[in-house]
């Protein structure tokens, strides 16, 4: 298994022990001993200790490295100077390719170090291509290391309700998808949207400043268990119960397995689900802004 641009030892502490290298499987009776773990990252994080092979690459060279690997697995010649640019000698790449091909079942877990650096979506696309092409030799998959809580669930729910995983524009009454145009950062930085409902996130702490400025300008509504940075610049804040601690429901694990929550506490606040439903009902009571809308499908 290959971890690329992630630091599971610190960010997903139980990933190793619970799901990947330590577990015993039908074909990996000896657990860790039967597995090979490779870590690709720009610096030596604590995760490197767990790896059989650690490849330290130059920042921003992920795409180049993936492209070189894709060529190597197909036995094509690559330019050695171009490979050296990535910070790794060709021999290391060949070693990695040999390990990948020798695997009975390979997996690439890619983290934010890959998908948030130079190349962004293109890097993720390249990793997925690499995994797909490896299937000519052995079973190989790729999976993103998802961050907080239920982002995976958001993808899944939007996929089965709208057909697209994120950044879905429903302005025309049917879904349109175009990352870069309808993604939050772009919408906010360009100042396209004129109201915002924020739930289960704190963009006031994470967005680029122009985006935050725009959030402060327009009516922003925040649902959160706490008064967050975003709440402070919002017009409306509603305190809700904390998901998983005092609010029940379903969440998706990063491999898209839905799991039920078993809350241990009873919150004095309503759940997000209840508040969103009540906002929806309140919207329904208001006059439609387009004829035939407000819950009735536009034909």
């Amino acid at each position, binding site marked *: 298994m290959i971890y690329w641009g992630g630091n599971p030892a610190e960010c997903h502490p139980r990933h190793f022990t619970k799901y990947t290298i330590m577990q015993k499987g039908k074909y990996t009776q000896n657990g860790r001993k039967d597995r090979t773990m490779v870590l690709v990252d720009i610096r030596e994080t604590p995760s490197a200790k767990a790896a059989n092979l650690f490849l330290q690459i130059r920042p921003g060279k992920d795409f180049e490295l993936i492209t070189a690997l894709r060529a190597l697995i197909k036995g094509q010649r690559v330019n050695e100077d171009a490979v050296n640019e990535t910070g790794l000698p060709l021999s290391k790449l060949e070693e990695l390719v040999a390990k990948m091909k020798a695997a009975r079942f390979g997996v690439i877990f890619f983290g934010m170090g890959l998908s948030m650096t130079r190349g962004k979506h293109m890097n993720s696309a390249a990793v997925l291509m690499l995994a797909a092409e490896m299937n000519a030799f052995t079973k190989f998959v790729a999976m993103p290391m998802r961050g907080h809580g239920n982002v995976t669930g958001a993808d899944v729910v939007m996929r089965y309700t709208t057909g697209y995983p994120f950044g879905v524009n429903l302005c025309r009454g049917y879904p349109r998808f175009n990352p870069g145009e309808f993604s939050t950062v772009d919408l906010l930085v360009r100042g396209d949207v004129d109201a915002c409902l924020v739930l289960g*996130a704190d963009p006031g702490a994470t967005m680029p400043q122009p985006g935050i400025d725009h959030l402060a300008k327009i009516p922003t509504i925040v649902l959160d268990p706490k008064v967050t940075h975003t709440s402070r610049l919002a017009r409306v804040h509603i305190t809700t119960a904390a998901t998983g601690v005092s609010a029940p429901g379903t969440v998706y*694990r990063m491999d898209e397995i839905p799991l039920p929550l078993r809350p241990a506490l009873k919150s004095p606040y309503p759940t997000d689900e209840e508040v969103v439903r009540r906002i929806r009902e309140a919207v329904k009571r208001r006059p439609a802004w387009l004829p035939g809308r407000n819950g009735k499908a536009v034909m």
Partner: protein
Amino acid sequence: MTLNIVKNATCTFCGCVCDDIELHAEGEKIVETKRACSLGESWFKHHTAERLFPDALIDGHPATVDDAIERAADYLVAADMPLVYGLSNVTCETQREAVSLAEMVGGVIDSHTSL
């Protein structure tokens, strides 16, 4: 105070979503988080059921949830292109409600994935 033990509870702090955690809750606090890692432990212990914040705020002033919901609906209906954003720390049930709301107000819906 009675100890409320929840077996196989689910931690939602990181994408691992470990579902084998044993929580011991005492009153409004979680006091013990068996099998959770250090991140998960602080996440569970950090969230209590105490009433630490006002129910709702409108323009920074305490308000009732009912008023806040009406105000939220006003803003969303009045907007030409509202955005529903976040969705990471909420349940799938909430996400479905949010998609339906976004459709109704003719807006954009987006999650952390796009960042």
